[in-house]
């Protein structure tokens, strides 16, 4: 059966109609964006840090096989068991086997987007392993049977009464509790006994250091450290793109990660794992799941630099006004829109249209991923692979439903009945980006447009001359 594209605009409709949720979501994320700006202004070296972060990541990605081998050798020396998983299924099988070998029936875990990619809970639970998310936001999403709607704040689309209702159902607390403090306390009380009785713990990893064979976990609630240190078995799921060469490179990244994500200088916990505790066992699973393939995509490989800070989501007007769940994918927002199609081009073909192309995502990205350029390039790829009505409809969907200005967009794309093939390239670009016509674009976009225009005009001219 052919998989259907996610109907992002339709999925967002219910969210948009729900004014209290929409308003809170929009304001909360914008608040995070502003807090990030404040932190940035306190560091005169911010732009230099971004450049360094980008260079370190690009260097590492270009030398990834060597750095992975170095990491593996050092980790093994430190007593860590290293596993490699080509895809989610292999990852899940490996984790299942480790647990089985230990007779482990309960697994406590901290937040990890890679395990979401792998659908690990769905694999383990029918095999008799109880998986408990210990991060508050992630736990809320688990209890509600939903994916995380944001990579840093998984339940940001919910309001306090939604959480009170879920907790009442599952933790038997007061359904009318409207105090986030007391609800957070309920989570602590509910989680502690589960943590203390767990057979195994699992974390992700924000950074992986080749030089020392370490991996680093950045969190706030203390649940990741509990999950890693209380049970005698710690399994860490690591995306292979998370490598950095040297321990000292972490300075650059740790200084920007939480500032970009939440506008706090650092996460409450920055934990460096280099080997198991005495009497314990530590395993890492290095997960590819499409990353090695993405590395070969000339226009899109730099998306692998992503450190999952979520800043591009917080700043994106479409994300703020549609909610992460409407993307129908593990990764939402601008970063999701450029990496999801590499997992399944057809299913996620609508996502690169969920953007106003205002360039704000690119401007806030701490590792300088040219996110809006990549969105643009995806639109081009999709325009080539799909029929015209599809592309046109998606532009309209984004414009009309999400941003409430259908007229503007109809005007912007009028005259596009002409077949794609006969449109000059620059006109095609403008048409794929109606927003650009009516908005003042930030500098980098302008520059790109001009260079594109120039390039294409010259080409057209040349063609003309040739003919």
């Amino acid at each position, binding site marked *: 059966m052919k998989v259907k594209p996610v109907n992002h605009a339709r999925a967002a409709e219910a969210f948009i109609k729900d004014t209290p949720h929409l308003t*809170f979501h929009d304001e*909360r994320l914008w608040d995070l964006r502003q807090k990030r700006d404040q932190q940035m202004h306190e*560091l005169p*070296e911010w732009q*230099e840090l971004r450049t360094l972060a980008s*260079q370190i990541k*690009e*260097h590492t*990605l*270009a*030398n*990834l*096989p060597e750095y992975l081998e170095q990491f593996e050798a050092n980790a093994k020396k430190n007593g860590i068991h290293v596993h*490699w*998983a*080509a895809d989610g299924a*292999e990852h899940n099988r490996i984790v299942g086997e480790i647990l089985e070998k230990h007779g482990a029936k309960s697994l406590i875990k901290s937040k990890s987007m890679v395990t979401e990619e792998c659908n690990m809970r769905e694999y383990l639970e029918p095999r008799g392993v109880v998986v408990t998310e210990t991060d508050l*936001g992630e736990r*809320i999403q688990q209890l509600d049977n939903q994916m995380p709607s944001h990579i840093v704040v*998984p*339940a*940001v689309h*919910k*309001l*306090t009464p939604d959480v009170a209702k879920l907790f009442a159902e599952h933790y038997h607390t007061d359904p009318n509790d409207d105090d986030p403090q007391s609800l*957070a306390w309920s*989570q602590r009380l509910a989680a*502690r006994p589960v943590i*203390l009785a767990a057979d195994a713990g699992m974390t992700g990893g924000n950074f992986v250091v080749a030089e*020392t064979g370490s991996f680093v976990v950045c969190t*706030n*609630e*203390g*649940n990741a*450290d*509990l999950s890693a*240190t*209380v049970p005698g078995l710690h399994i860490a799921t690591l995306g*292979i793109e998370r490598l950095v060469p*040297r*321990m000292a490179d*972490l*300075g*650059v990244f740790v200084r920007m990660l939480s500032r970009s994500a*939440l506008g*706090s*200088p*650092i996460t*409450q*916990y*920055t934990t*460096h*794992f*280099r080997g*198991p*505790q005495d009497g314990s066992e530590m395993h890492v699973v290095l997960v590819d799941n499409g990353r*090695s*393939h993405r*590395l*070969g995509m000339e226009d899109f490989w730099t998306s692998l630099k992503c450190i999952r800070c979520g800043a591009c989501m917080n700043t994106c007007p479409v994300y703020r006004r549609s909610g992460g769940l409407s993307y129908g994918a593990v990764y939402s927002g601008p970063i999701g829109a450029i990496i999801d199609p590499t997992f399944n081009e057809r299913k996620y073909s609508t996502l690169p249209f969920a953007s106003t192309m205002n360039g704000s995502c690119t401007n806030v990205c701490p590792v300088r991923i040219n996110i809006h350029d990549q969105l643009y390039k995806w639109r081009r790829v999709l325009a080539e692979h799909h029929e015209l009505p599809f592309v046109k409809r998606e532009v309209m969907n984004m414009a009309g439903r999400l941003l409430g200005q259908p007229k503007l967009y109809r005007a912007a794309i009028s005259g596009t009945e002409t077949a794609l093939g006969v449109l000059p390239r620059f006109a095609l670009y403008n048409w794929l980006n109606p927003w650009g016509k009516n908005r003042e674009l930030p500098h980098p976009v302008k520059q790109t447009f001009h260079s594109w225009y120039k390039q294409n005009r010259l080409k057209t001219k040349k063609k003309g001359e040739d003919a």
Partner: protein
Amino acid sequence: MSSRDAILARLRDNRPDPAAHALPPVARLGDMDASRARFEKSLALLGGQVLAPQEGESLSAAIARRFADAKIICSAVPEFEGTVRIEELGTPQTAANVDVLVVRAPFGIAEMGSIFLSEAQLPTLNSAAHLTQHIVVILSESTLTANMHTAYIERPEFHTARYGVLMSGPSATADIQGVLVRGAQGVRTLSVWWEQ
């Protein structure tokens, strides 16, 4: 071919030209102020506190004053008794009953108000630092380093510790409607006691 070899082979085929992407030298940037004042300001921002002695008060008197209701006070330092030694806890289940844990951090980071702990400071039980309700950290001003760059460049612990945590204030969450709650699942408070 194993998955390992297949992944590495695919990466070798697909990677961009390594020659075009040089590794920049290690960065040492930013404010180089390693003062106690900067540390305390950062610590406060992250929700940590300073446990200041009142009129020549000893550490144990200050702890008794601040944590008047505490029943189990666990010590991981030689100069302070407490009601139990960290080495005697044995299991996380016992550590979960601790009200206050007293430890010594080998260094702090002024930029972040962070303190570092590893298995060397938490003998036999790393989880004790997270299962205790409150933590009191003895810190010497002379061990402060300016920022994350200097910390990673200068401190050998990042290369030697098997478990090394930078704690910056107590555990916290803002996962419910964006309201900041200090004291999430790890320690509810973190206090720094300056070594005289």
